[in-house]
């Protein structure tokens, strides 16, 4: 996993609430048994005018000019901003895989669905919750200034705007630690394998019908 310390990038405005994981990566792409290669199909049904299937020649596909990621300069964006309840629906981790594979490192929204939120941190992707008012102001600034670029400083937990104004954000300490160091949390949990074994011994004694 790529560590996340600071990141500077263009913010792409996806002005929608309830962006679900079916929209982020449609089901036909979930048949892959790999973790990579989902980026070209991120938001496939919104991004292209034809129906996408795995293995298609992307150069032959017709892009939807009205979709934000097909507009200059947003094809180069690495931060996404959206409205409430981003990532709702299916638990598919293919959604953050696709977002990360496309080149995004962070998502700003007033709220995220629980499973998606947790999946992001496992893939070097930082979801940041900001108030509705802040998100609204950011959308307005982005619409007024094409190529609106911000810097996210995870260690100090703030976003630096082009005006040099800083917006602070909250992030769970454990998740921040793992993200900043690119840590695999399985390795961390394995360090507690003796505690797990001790728990099991006691647990199965009490709940013997589970054996």
């Amino acid at each position, binding site marked *: 996993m790529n560590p996340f310390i600071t990141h500077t990038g263009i913010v792409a405005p996806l002005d929608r609430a*309830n962006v679900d994981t079916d929209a982020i990566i449609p089901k036909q792409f979930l*048949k892959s048994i790999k*973790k990579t290669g989902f980026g070209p199909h991120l938001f496939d049904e919104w991004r292209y005018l034809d129906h996408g299937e795995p293995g298609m020649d992307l150069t032959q596909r017709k892009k939807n000019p009205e979709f934000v990621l097909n507009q200059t300069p947003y094809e180069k964006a690495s931060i996404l901003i959206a409205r409430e309840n981003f990532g709702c629906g299916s638990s598919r*981790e293919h959604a953050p895989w696709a977002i990360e594979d496309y080149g995004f490192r962070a998502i700003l929204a007033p709220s995220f669905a629980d499973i998606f939120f947790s999946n992001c941190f496992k893939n070097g992707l930082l979801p940041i919750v900001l108030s509705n008012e802040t998100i609204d102001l950011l959308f307005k600034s982005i619409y007024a200034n094409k190529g609106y670029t911000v810097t996210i400083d995870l260690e100090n937990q703030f976003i630096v705007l082009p005006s040099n104004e800083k917006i602070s954000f909250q992030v769970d300490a454990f998740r921040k630690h793992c993200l900043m160091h690119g840590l695999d949390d399985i390795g961390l949990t394995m360090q507690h394998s003796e505690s797990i074994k001790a728990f099991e011994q006691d647990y199965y004694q009490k709940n013997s019908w589970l054996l």
Partner: protein
Amino acid sequence: MQAKTLYEKLFESHIVREEDGTYLIYIDRHLVHEVTSPQAFEGLRINHRSVWRSKSILAVPDHNVPTTDRSLGISDPISKIQVETLDENCKHFGLTQFPMNDSRQGIVHVIGPEQGSTLPGMTIVCGDSHTSTHGAFGALAMGIGTSEVEHVLATQCLILKKFKTMEVRVEGKLNKGITAKDIALALIGKIGTAGGTGYAIEFTGECIRSLSMEGRMTLCNMAIEAGARAGMVAVDDVTISYVENRPFSPKGEALEKAKAYWKTLHSDKDAKFDKVVMLNGSEILPQVTWGTSPEMVVSIEGMTPDPKNENDPSKRKSIEDALTYMGLEPNLPINQIKIDKIFIGSCTNSRIEDLREAANVIKGKKIAQNIKLALAVPGSGLVKLQAEKEGLDQIFIAAGFEWREPGCSMCLAMNADRLNPGERCASTSNRNFEGRQGQGGRTHLVSPSMAAAAGIYGHFVDIRSLS
């Protein structure tokens, strides 16, 4: 002793360790399917890790499997590889799997309970958001991502924060024709698809107690559509009599010991929830979604909304976008919406009770001429067998339905069952997102009897008006 909610009892009995509010929670049951597991198994192999407790796992292919003649195999080569990869992984790691041609194969959230693999008091995970279904048994059950699937495979634990608790209390008696699906949709209509975010929901009240296990599973299944990662119902006699005598459930002395514990799995009388939402069961009408999110729902007596009446510009745009996608005019009475396809199935509504309800509506009738396809897809091979024993298959077939093999099917259209662009479906599934049932497809979520009735009339009708 401090009064505790059911969620707190389940959570606290599985804590391995805690540090600054981050918990390591022990997992009793891990359900696995073909779509969200290959990368997790690959991760284990790359890092030379093994499965911590192979006995905790039950695997089944369900998303990609064809619902037509299984002897022909899977025609889509990519789907085939995914199902074969699950077969190989289960063989390699020594896991129990019901492969595609096993009579016990079915949707993972149907077979877990059916086999007694889902038991009260358990922590249950699966790389699938609808794992909340199993909370119906007084279990803490939740959907996880593939990284977490790998984590549970390797360590038998999940890293979790405590959820907040929400009580959804449903008092009163449901009217005839109203089902758990209508309760779920009415709740989502009330609190929204993000209303339960950060919460574990417990469904309580007279109305919930009177539901069968099938109904409780439907309700907990849809908790995720209200944003809650887990939904649950306290254990009572209905739970215990369902669980007894299942292949994987405890027997004899072990069962008696288990029962004594299971009976403690309810919220204490004075337990405090962070939030309480009340619904009156007797006021719930048959529900139909009109838009592209489960919260875009009205009763059969209602009509599509008029964006002009919405002052919030962001919400107004959502309504306009949804009506455009769905091909519907504002202020259109729901019972005038014509349907192209019917789907009865999914982890929400494919159990025997659901099939009985639908069959009861269509018995002796034929689907309307404008219905291009009506699918009845049982949730498991055993549900299918039971339905056939009761003659339900013949009722569906005589009415013009296709009687299929078990799987997720047109709930998410990963196999060949799907909507074509612009087609409109009355569906007993759980998500009406854009493209969910096929690109450009239009989904209306309803109960099994409402879907069946829409099939007969060719448009939505009030199930209460049918004798």
